[in-house]
């Protein structure tokens, strides 16, 4: 369990993180979202004890990072942003070094190192020097380094940046699997990734938490009920007169004309009312053929933009 209590981090007069509090329960995967410079990495660096907060406390599995730093740190596996590694070591040497740093007992250390190398898919290249690896491979080495020693808490700063789609899928499923036994905080700016992996999302902007909820709830918050997209075949352009026939339509707007002469419209209702039934029957009466009718799907992107936008207006 990670408890972040009223963390503030100041650089001179600049407040990078402003009174942030949140809790991550055991076995939960939480995504930290926010635009660049929002304070994600600063928050993560504070949790890992790499930097010290100006005010507030971080408690990891009951150990305060300032009062019991060694105990707190031994709970954490950290994958820093930009995957810093030792270029002159081989993969095996690096993971072994990380295991030693984390005080993994000599007995069984080799097996644990091999286990992690296997889990991250690096077995065949484990004797290669890190400087000769590709970006994606380095990412996985960094991941292996964070995972070795089976820390209860994982802090992953942008874990999938620079990977190819196949590797991204692999890393994601690895994180998901790890989330069953570990407490995970990850930061990302790829929203689809966060909505796929995370149980909960914390959106940070300008050093403050602006939203905290499950990805689904965040999406629902911004989805509007009164907008519909219809694609119709309407050769006689009868849709113009439809507006008067159905009560509750505020606006019908042509969005695009497709190659097969069907047209896509956006219909906005006046109230938060489902108009689909009415539209279906009225369109049929007028001889307008409906090819497609759907509600807009709100994505986390929309939620994010909306929330960040609101925060920006303050």
């Amino acid at each position, binding site marked *: 369990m990670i408890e972040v209590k009223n963390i503030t981090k100041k650089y001179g007069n600049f407040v990078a993180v402003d009174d942030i509090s949140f809790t991550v329960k055991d076995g939960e995967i939480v995504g930290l979202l926010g635009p660049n410079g929002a304070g994600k990495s600063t928050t993560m660096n504070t949790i890992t004890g790499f930097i010290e907060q100006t005010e507030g406390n971080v408690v990891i599995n009951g150990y305060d990072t300032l009062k019991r730093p060694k105990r707190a740190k031994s709970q954490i596996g950290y994958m820093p942003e930009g995957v810093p590694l030792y270029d002159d070591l081989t993969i095996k040497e690096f993971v072994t070094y990380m295991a*030693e740093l984390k005080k993994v007992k000599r007995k069984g250390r080799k097996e644990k190192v091999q286990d992690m190398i296997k889990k991250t898919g690096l077995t065949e290249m484990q004797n290669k020097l890190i400087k000769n690896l590709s970006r994606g491979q380095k990412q996985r080495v960094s991941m292996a380094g964070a995972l070795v020693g089976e820390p209860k808490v994982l802090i992953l700063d942008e874990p999938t940046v620079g990977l190819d789609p196949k590797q991204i899928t692999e890393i994601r499923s690895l994180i998901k699997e790890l989330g069953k036994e570990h407490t995970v905080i990850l930061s990302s700016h790829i929203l689809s990734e966060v909505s796929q992996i995370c149980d909960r999302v914390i959106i940070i902007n300008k050093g403050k938490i602006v939203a905290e909820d499950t990805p689904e709830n965040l999406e629902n918050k911004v989805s509007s009920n009164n907008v519909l997209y219809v694609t119709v075949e309407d050769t006689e352009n009868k849709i113009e007169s439809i507006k008067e026939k159905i009560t509750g339509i505020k606006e019908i707007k042509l969005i695009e004309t497709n190659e097969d002469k069907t047209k896509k419209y956006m219909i906005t209702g006046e109230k938060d009312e489902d108009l689909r039934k009415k539209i279906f029957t009225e369109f049929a009466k007028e001889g307008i053929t409906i090819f497609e009718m759907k509600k807009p799907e709100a994505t986390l992107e929309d939620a994010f933009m909306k929330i960040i936008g609101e925060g920006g207006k303050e």
Partner: protein
Amino acid sequence: MIAIIKKELKNYFFSPIGYVVIAIFLFIFSAVFYDSAINTGTTDLTSIFLFVAAYGGLMFMIPLLTMWSIAGERKSGTDQLIMTSPVSMLGVVMAKFISAVIFIIIPLIFTLMYFGILCHYQVPDIPTYLTSMLGFFLLSMTYIAFGILSSSITESPIIAGILTVAFIFAVTWLPEMISTLSGFSLMNPFLNFLMGKIDIAVTVMFITLAILFILITMIIMQRRKSVK
């Protein structure tokens, strides 16, 4: 901490740095040995230690050993890995210090070779040889502590190296050139060891200086943690 020492020592041997440091030492030592033993015919090894300590030997060996220690980690970002592992700040700094100190013993062991050669002709004064080694070791230790300190100030290993060269120059040659600075010389106290004495006061001074430099390093790193 032991993990870091192991890694540092490995690093000295798997990169050219370690070999260059030993080579500098052996080159100067051999050259002076050739001159003193073969040309002059003395069995005095102490003057060679003085030569290595004063004429460029340590001035290049120590910066090479220490310039990367903390600055290099910060440059590559790997300090994030060490500082977030369950090792205390003191543990990290001490590990860096100890590994360089252990390494500097290696060239000292090589001097046994010259000692052996001399034994073939006439056994040199063993106590003087041992105190010279001790003095050389203590002096190196103080320099290493400063090297670690300068490596913690900057993110650039080159600047850290230059700072260390400047420091060693300042405590070796500046007091010779400007007499009012003679109190700052570390070379004069070192001479006592070359005369076959174990000077307790000087030993304490060297160790105290080393502790002081390590403490300043700790303060700098702690401050960076809360300011960064």
